[in-house]
């Protein structure tokens, strides 16, 4: 080293201590190492041992330090003193806040618990919050799934007992061809990037199906810039080509799916389209060995895909034959769909042939014997190395459920689910819909609800209707309007509560959901609904309680604020009872724990519910003597048992010999400490013989029972044909006692096809007048509204122009710096535009939730997020444009109620630049003041 070269300390002390917990900068739930100096957070990095992120961490996760110090953090409980929407509050004590809440809620519980609507947004503790709501007795509980991706989740569970993300993942280590349909890039964030990195490192091909070529689609080897909302038609065209060419896995279909199940083919029968079942209720197949009927799961049965049988005057044919009838129809031929989907027929054929080639000519074999549920042992595991992933892009359409179903049918006919190289479930999935609870609505004064709120319906009898046939829930979930609404419809709650349709409520209690801004359709309308008064001058929605950690737009519209902590100041559990973090080859759960203590008068929301639950005397929250059962959420996490031996956390439960590795066991008072010692999580690996074929694999089923995932083995076959959907169609055709209202019969008949179909939503959204689709995407470096308060992340995404494709750009003579008026059937916005060539030619888009209301999030009122940022939400109504029949048609999937965000149709024209994006809403008063001017953040000396 030259003598004048400075000496650098290359081994400085990194931190005093590393505390390992779980990230909450988005929904991905990665493990993080929080480096501490002098008791403060100095640096955050990924935890290398953690199953979700394996050491890596995204931009959001690394910016956590700026979330924990954000000036937007609420500081104390607040009581509204100005009019709703003004942001005028006074600080109160927790005792005052909890007394107010108790005084409001206790009388509702005593008289009519349905008067409370409790909806919890992006909650990661739904098994706990739903337990609280069940104890309260209201039927009106759900989280945000209905406005997020319930189509994906419900279609997956009804079809194959699990879906993407938390339910399963591509076999990143073995797949040779990966097709990615539209995703929100936090679903899930780091695992997809890790997986894409693995594919790229070994040169496996990535196909991106997305109207927008950003992010993951930017690195796709083949980009298919599909017309939004037509994914289902494209997929069914692939199904058509593969079936026509016989490129389908016949053995897989016969043994592991309901393709060979016999279906009633008599149009006059009240059971037309239902399965032939034996006296035990088991679906019947024809055994190729005997030519006779047999239960599908009979030992040694060889189900026949092509059988026909006539019994008691009724002809039964297999599901497979119905599929052949449907999908070989020329309407699905590439030439017939090419114009609608915006993909040349030759290219559709090319993709189908690639799928066929990789699935069958490049099949994988693993020398691992396994035994199936019929008792037959196989000496190998055969893999079809084509894998798929999809999320909101195909899901947030009114045809999303059937589109997601179509994708699963494509995976299944290729034999690529739960096999090496294909798609793999993550424990506790696979789990058939029958193993999930049915929804419950039995509410009585002073009583707990009669069961879980949400679940899976199997026919009209399971709908949540009152005796007069009206909806039992405020969001109209599980009604004829959307029978299979497994996650509820949070996006309809405020609108329905305001309209008193189906009934009026008293208190709206929400957690972590920015419903007066980016999480609602029709944002301006929601402001009116939240502030509207009746003839007495009282608010139409009388009381609103809200819990959030930050000064979000929603805060201003609540009457009582219960301030939550940040994610580094709290206990949480990422539970197997809830939305787990497992891997395909391991069962896992995790905790958060207070790596720092709050420096404000705030409390973790779940701990607040423990206190409030006790004050209200809710079952499960009080001891026999009426005293508070759980001192706080940590106490609940440790001591609550949902079933004997099964609690929120599965790791280190107790047996006679002390703490177990994990699974079933008694309460361990030191359980949370054990998690902290282990880096914040617990994982146990799936045995080798149980790694694949999980729904049918005896070794997996037995292992799952031993870990407490099920109480008994639950083998099942995949549902290419979803029989419960046919039951709703039968009702619409006039069969059965429970009948839909006449105005819904036609739609139920059309949409509830038990085999996947595609239908256009264009007419409902007036595409003839509004020919351009407008979409949003969530950037990888920003999680909905949370990111903007973050001083580092807002420098990456501080503005969100409307991206316009070349054709529309040129038609309008746009230049950089121009603004456009964007009009939908519902409203109008005026916003900045930017050119993007790598974009479907009839699609415009912007980043989601960058636009902010002035006064929120402790930002300056002139922040670009408030002056140039904008929301598309102003253009989207929670109802479809009126059809002239006087009815309120929800802008949601008619099967699940999923919010159809991506059906938005607009037209666009150049506009004179306004001084700021329109509509410009007046500022709200910040209850936390404004952030500091400059930051020179360094914790260590």
């Amino acid at each position, binding site marked *: 080293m030259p003598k004048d070269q400075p000496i650098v300390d290359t081994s400085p002390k990194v931190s005093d201590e590393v505390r390992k917990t779980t990230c909450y900068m988005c929904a991905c739930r990665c493990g993080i190492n929080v480096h501490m100096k002098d008791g403060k957070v100095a640096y955050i990095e990924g935890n290398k041992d953690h199953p979700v992120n394996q050491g890596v961490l995204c931009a959001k996760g690394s910016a956590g330090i700026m979330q924990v110090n954000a*000036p937007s953090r609420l500081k104390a409980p607040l009581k509204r003193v100005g009019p709703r929407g003004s942001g005028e509050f006074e600080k109160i004590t927790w005792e005052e806040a909890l007394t107010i809440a108790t005084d409001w809620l206790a009388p509702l519980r005593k008289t009519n618990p349905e008067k409370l609507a409790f909806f919890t947004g992006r909650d990661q503790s739904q098994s706990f919050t739903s337990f609280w709501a069940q104890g309260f007795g209201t039927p009106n509980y759900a989280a945000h799934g209905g406005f997020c991706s319930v189509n994906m989740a419900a279609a997956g569970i009804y079809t194959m007992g699990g879906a993407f993300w938390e339910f399963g993942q591509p076999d990143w280590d073995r797949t040779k061809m990966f097709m990615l349909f539209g995703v929100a890039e936090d679903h899930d964030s780091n695992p997809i990037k890790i997986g894409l990195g693995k594919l790229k490192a070994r040169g496996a091909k990535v196909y991106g199906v997305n109207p927008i070529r950003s992010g993951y689609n930017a690195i796709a080897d083949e980009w298919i810039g599909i017309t939004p909302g037509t994914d289902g038609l494209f997929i069914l065209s692939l199904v058509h080509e593969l079936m026509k060419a*016989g490129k389908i896995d016949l053995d897989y279909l016969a043994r592991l799916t309901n393709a060979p199940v016999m279906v009633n083919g008599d149009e006059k029968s009240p059971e037309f389209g239902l399965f032939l079942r034996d006296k035990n209720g088991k679906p019947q197949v024809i055994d190729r060995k005997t030519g006779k009927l047999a239960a599908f799961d009979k030992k040694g049965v060889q189900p026949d895909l*092509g059988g026909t049988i006539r019994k008691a005057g009724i002809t039964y044919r297999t599901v497979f034959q119905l599929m052949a009838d449907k999908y070989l129809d020329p309407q699905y031929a590439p030439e017939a769909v090419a114009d609608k989907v915006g993909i040349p027929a030759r290219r559709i054929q090319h993709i189908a042939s690639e799928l066929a080639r990789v699935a069958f000519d490049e099949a994988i074999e693993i020398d691992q014997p396994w035994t199936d549920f019929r008792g037959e042992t196989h000496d190998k595991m055969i893999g079809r190395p084509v894998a798929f992933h999809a999320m909101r892009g195909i899901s947030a359409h009114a045809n999303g459920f059937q589109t997601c179903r179509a994708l699963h049918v494509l995976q299944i006919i290729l034999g690529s689910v739960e096999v090496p190289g294909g798609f793999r479930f993550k424990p506790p999935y696979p789990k058939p819909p029958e193993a999930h609870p049915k929804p419950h609505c039995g509410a009585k004064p002073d009583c707990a609800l009669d069961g879980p709120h949400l679940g899976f319906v199997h026919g009209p009898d399971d709908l949540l209707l009152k005796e007069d046939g009206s909806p039992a829930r405020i969001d109209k979930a599980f009604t004829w309007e959307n029978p299979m609404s497994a996650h509820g419809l949070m996006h309809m709650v405020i609108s329905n509560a305001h309209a008193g349709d189906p009934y009026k409520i008293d208190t709206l209690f929400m957690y972590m959901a920015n419903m007066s801004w980016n999480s609602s359709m029709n944002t301006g309308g929601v402001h009116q609904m939240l502030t509207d008064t009746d003839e007495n001058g009282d608010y139409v929605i009388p009381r609103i309680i809200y819990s959030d950690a930050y000064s979000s737009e929603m805060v201003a519209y609540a009457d009582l604020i219960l301030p939550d902590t940040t994610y580094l100041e709290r206990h949480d559990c990422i539970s197997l009872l809830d939305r787990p973090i497992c891997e395909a080859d391991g069962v896992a759960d995790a905790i958060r724990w207070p790596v720092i203590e709050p420096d404000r008068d705030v409390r973790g929301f779940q701990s607040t519910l423990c206190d409030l639950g006790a004050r209200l005397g809710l079952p499960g929250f009080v001891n026999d003597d009426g005293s508070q059962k759980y001192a706080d959420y940590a106490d609940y996490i440790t001591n609550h048992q949902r079933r004997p031996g099964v609690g929120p956390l599965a790791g280190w439960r107790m047996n006679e010999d002390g703490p177990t590795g994990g699974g079933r066991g008694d309460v361990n008072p030191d359980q949370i400490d054990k998690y902290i010692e282990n880096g914040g999580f617990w994982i146990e690996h799936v045995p080798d013989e149980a790694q694949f074929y999980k729904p049918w694999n005896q070794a997996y089923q037995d292992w799952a029972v031993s870990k407490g995932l099920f109480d008994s083995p639950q083998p099942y076959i995949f549902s290419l044909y979803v029989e419960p959907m046919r039951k709703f169609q039968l009702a619409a055709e006039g069969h059965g006692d429970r009948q839909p209202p006449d105005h819904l019969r036609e739609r139920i008949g059309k949409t509830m096809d038990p085999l996947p179909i595609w239908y256009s939503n264009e007419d409902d959204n007036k595409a003839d007048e509004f020919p351009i689709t407008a979409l949003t995407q969530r950037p990888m470096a920003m999680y909905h509204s949370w990111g903007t*308060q973050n001083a580092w992340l807002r420098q990456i995404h501080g503005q969100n122009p409307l991206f316009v494709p070349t054709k529309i750009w040129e038609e309008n003579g746009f230049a950089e710096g121009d603004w456009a008026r964007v009009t939908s059937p519902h409203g109008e916005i005026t916003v900045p535009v930017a050119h993007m060539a790598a974009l479907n030619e009839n699609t415009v888009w912007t980043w989601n939730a960058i636009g902010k209301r002035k006064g929120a999030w402790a930002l*300056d009122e002139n922040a670009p997020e408030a002056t140039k940022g904008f929301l598309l939400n102003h253009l989207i109504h929670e109802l479809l444009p009126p059809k002239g029949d006087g009815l309120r048609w929800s802008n949601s999937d008619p099967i699940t109620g999923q919010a159809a965000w991506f059906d938005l149709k607009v037209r666009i024209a150049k506009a004179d630049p306004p001084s700021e994006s329109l509509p410009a809403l007046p500022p709200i008063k910040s209850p936390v003041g404004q952030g500091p001017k400059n*930051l020179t953040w360094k914790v260590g000396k």
Partner: protein
Amino acid sequence: MTQLPTSTEKKLGLVIDLDTCVGCHACVVSCKGWNTENYGAPLSDQDAYGSAPVGTFLNRVHSYEIQPDQGPAQLIHFPKSCLHCEDAPCVTVCPTGASYKRVEDGIVLVNESDCIGCGLCAWACPYGARELDQAEGVMKKCTLCVDRIYNENLPEEDRQPACVRTCPAGARHFGDFSDPDSNVSKLTAERGGMDLMPDQGTKPVNKYLPPRPKDTWEDIDILAPLLEPVAENAGGLLGWLDKTLEKL
């Protein structure tokens, strides 16, 4: 004027894989976090919650659209930080000797105590890889995490730059380019690693792996036999099914 060493013992640097980078900014923020807390002055942010927030970053991701002659437009995510050039003009232009290139590993650093914040080095750098910190008035740049890669307080596996350790897609690689058998040398050879703006004569150490060819499907019949129809309708498919199953 400051002298560059005639040679360095190692050439430490990065390989950045443009075929794999999804543009997520993980490297940008991880860098910001580490270097705010570590080497030299914190990376400050001005108007952090205001109308024109602007802070110091040592690594940024830019995105460029390209329109090939054939096929649809493409979007390239391009992370950029100091390339630790062998002929680093930012060093030779420095009037105080604050900017220097280390003899032992070739890392280009700024000795903040000697930096007068004149900005000549940022002007000389053709890549725009240096940023003057507005709070401290000194020049900041990528240190290749010189306080991580040798840091005995870190586990050995973590002794790599923060951006490399955090990159979720594995698009960033760290190593010694003077060793032909190093991971970075091999990747550069296998994937045609490129210099950024070689015409500038700076001999950058960091290399970029170019995107692989995209949208290469062709409208030819090479795969046609795979889709040879076995049936035109449902009846035909069942006939095929019978024949196929008989053979099994």
